[in-house]
């Protein structure tokens, strides 16, 4: 049973009055169900059709040899090799490659890891330079804007995207902001330059749905008709879920052509059915518990709590439900619901068997996710938590891949997965480490030793020299 299905079963076992007729299969790596798409899935497929053709090029063959290979599967090859062919990992292991392909690149003294993945970014929708014209992150016109999609505001020329790639990031989820109870859909993008967001979509990745609890919605809407309290927040979530449940009931059995389009309901229905993954901005432990109660009532599966600074207080509950915890290494205190943040959260969550994720939520932090993981690792070890480097590597690779439903494709170095790789000049948990080469689908998108024109048109031709 896929992890998603396990989670779903757990929700049903809790007595949720869901209207789901089959388990969600949201993990492309686990998808083997040849069943025809439902009418609502057919609508989604049409909405996701692309104008611009994605770049079909892939890299390889080549072989990396001589370096330390950190796989995020628990294996560490020192030295080891990785063989890439057709944009995918064809082989890897310890020692020298028995059957190298293409150019053999000696990476002795260097470290090879999976490409880093940020489950929570606003790059593209809150692009730099931060100006009114580039601010497309919060559709703060109503507390429920489930109808909006981040990809429709995603600016592929955001200079932050190249900087993220230079930090070893190969995939990120661009999310709407947290002003709204339901902010809209997030999009998972693969960091290959393209002219439009659609072409950057990670192939086959499910959409995310961004929701928020706590201070932000009540602050933004307190003077604009509400919600103005945490009570109002949860009532808003429940009302939205109830509406979507009714809409699903009303459309049951209809052919796609007979369904009256309702963009807001379509997103919520996708969330209820598990076709879109629910990512909830939530800091406080009690806020998470309140949200989970509402989610259970309507059969909504929460994939991850983001910014979850107080997850350490309820890590047993979150781990048992396979809800990932995405947070920072050491942010805290910028608002009241962030006052109890501690640097051991990720380590404690991992120790409890939960999925810990380091996220950035920041154009600066995304450039150094490896350092954030290293800080959280050090804090955990100092508190007595037994952790391997591989555990911490998973906080920025495999665990976010799982939360995005793409762990069958990326997130670890395994045969058959996409060749999203980073070659670091030293141990990536060192503050001095730099990503020398970054590969996406086996294509070298970053080479720090080569001078190259900036990815972003905005930076092209600017007078930034002496």
């Amino acid at each position, binding site marked *: 049973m896929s992890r998603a299905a396990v989670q779903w079963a757990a929700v049903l076992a809790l007595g949720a009055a869901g209207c789901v007729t089959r388990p969600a299969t949201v993990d492309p790596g686990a998808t083997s169900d040849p069943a025809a798409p439902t009418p609502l899935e057919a609508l989604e497929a049409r909405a996701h059709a692309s104008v611009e053709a994605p770049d079909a090029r892939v890299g390889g063959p080549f072989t990396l040899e001589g370096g330390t290979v950190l796989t995020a599967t628990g294996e560490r090859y020192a030295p080891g090799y990785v063989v890439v062919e057709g944009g995918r990992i064809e082989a890897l292991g310890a020692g020298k490659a028995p059957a190298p392909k293409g150019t053999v690149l000696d990476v002795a003294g260097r470290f090879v890891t999976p490409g880093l993945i940020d489950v929570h970014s606003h790059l593209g929708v809150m692009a730099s*330079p931060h100006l009114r014209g580039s601010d497309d992150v919060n559709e703060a016109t109503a507390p429920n804007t489930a109808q909006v999609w981040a990809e429709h505001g995603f600016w592929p020329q955001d200079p932050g995207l190249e900087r993220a790639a230079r930090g070893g990031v190969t995939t990120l989820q661009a999310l709407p902001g947290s002003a709204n109870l339901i902010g809209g859909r997030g999009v998972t993008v693969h960091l290959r330059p393209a002219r439009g967001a659609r072409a950057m979509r990670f192939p086959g990745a499910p959409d995310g749905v961004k929701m928020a609890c706590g201070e932000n919605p009540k602050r933004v809407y307190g003077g604009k008709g509400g919600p103005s309290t945490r009570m109002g927040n949860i009532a808003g979530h429940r009302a939205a879920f109830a509406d979507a449940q009714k809409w699903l009931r009303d459309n049951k059995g209809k052919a796609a052509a007979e369904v009256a389009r309702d963009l807001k309901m379509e997103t919520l229905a996708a969330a209820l059915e598990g076709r879109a993954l629910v990512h909830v901005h939530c800091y406080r432990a009690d806020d998470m518990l309140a949200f989970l109660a509402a989610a259970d009532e309507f059969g909504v599966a929460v994939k991850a709590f983001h910014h979850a600074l107080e997850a350490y207080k309820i890590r047993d509950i979150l781990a048992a439900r396979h809800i990932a915890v995405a947070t920072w290494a050491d942010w805290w205190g910028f608002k009241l619901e962030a006052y109890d943040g501690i640097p051991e959260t990720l380590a*404690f969550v991992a120790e409890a068997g939960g999925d810990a994720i380091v996220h950035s939520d920041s154009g600066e932090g995304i450039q150094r996710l490896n350092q954030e993981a290293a800080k959280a690792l050090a804090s955990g070890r100092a508190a007595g938590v037994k952790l391997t480097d591989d555990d911490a590597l998973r906080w920025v690779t495999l665990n976010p891949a799982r939360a995005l439903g793409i762990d069958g494709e990326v997130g670890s170095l395994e045969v058959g997965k996409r060749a999203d790789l980073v070659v670091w000049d030293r141990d990536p948990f060192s*503050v001095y480490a730099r990503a020398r080469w970054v590969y996406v689908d086996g294509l070298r998108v970053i080479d720090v030793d080569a001078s190259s024109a900036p990815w972003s048109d905005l*930076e092209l031709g600017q007078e930034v020299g002496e």
Partner: protein
Amino acid sequence: MNALRLSSLLGVALTAGAAQGAGPPSTAGPPCALIRGVTLSDGAGDRVVDVVVRGDRVAAVRILAGGEPEPGCDVIAGAGRVLTAGLVDPYTRLGLVEVDLEAPTVDTDLRAPFQDPSGQIRASVRADLAYNPRSSLIGVTRLEGVTSAISVPSGGVISGRSFWVDLVGARQGTAIQRAPVAMHASLGPRQESRASAFQTIDVALREARDFATRQREWAKNQTPGFLTPRLDLAALLPVAKGELPLVVTVDRASDIEGLLRMTAGTPLRLVIAGGAEAWLVRDALAQRKVAVILDPLTYGPGSFDQLAARPDNAALLHAAGVAVMFSTFSSHGARKLRQLAGNAVRGGLSHAAALDAVTRVPAEVFGLADHGRVAPGAIADLVLWSGDPFELSTRVEGLWIHGRSVPLTSRQTALRDRYRHVPPR
């Protein structure tokens, strides 16, 4: 004395396992500690030494390590560990903010009741009067080796006066080392033209100089009126004379150039804060002896003023002879200071220069020369590290501020301990 010994045990013995053979507590004389066989690290390099702390000062640094303790001295095993001066973040809001988004807990914006109605000139306000040494941020920050900070007001063009604190003690009187320590102003993007901000600073400083020579006339009501309120002129007087540094927050190279042109020929002691594009005008900065406080993590055009930001900003400035310091420009994030220094090294700065940038340089630029170094007579603000202070796996294992061992605890360690097991017992 008992309190000292207890805190020594909490702070050092727990992690360093080292408070051995200290002998009976002495009943007279200042508290004493011997940090034995430690690797002392500063801008001059690394060497193994014994460091003797007596009272609030460093009493001796002995190159022949492994010496015998003096009677009554706590002994701390330093072998394999690194000792540095406490780190200094010269641009924080520590003690002025508890929770950013909760206005009743924020005391950084010195909108002045008696001043210029535009709200742009707040020179006379003293942020130090609002300093809260019991803020939970203090303990959190010093656990990462930061022992001193300058806390800075914000708002307007001339924002007011900052102060230097050592992160110790429950009393303002213990913590505050100098108030004011600098005047603060801000250029860069704003609603009105940045040229009008230049003029605000220019006029206020010119009038302050004028005021200096005509105070008697002014008292007799015989001068033409000043545009700048008198309280502010009085506060700006030491700035205009070059006695109090003027820290100007500015990123764009052309704005830094404008500032240098506008103040050419004056005795002002300028310091640039931000300075994302400072590397572009590094020769002019070096020539004018203008120091720069920067954040080595700034890489990316957060604004049009940072289009030329680059990761080797600190390295380029230092190579040109500019005094470089690092800041998180933060309150809750001030504990990240050593990560910033590490990233400056990653960007090409030498390790020694980066260590100076977070210790000796801010002490010298802001005139607290007994801080920021480990030498006889210096204030004993010391950090004992498990390894390279900038490396992310390194932990703080001992901390002394004003010669006193500080327990390695904070509100966050209390939360950590309460929830070490869930549900909490």
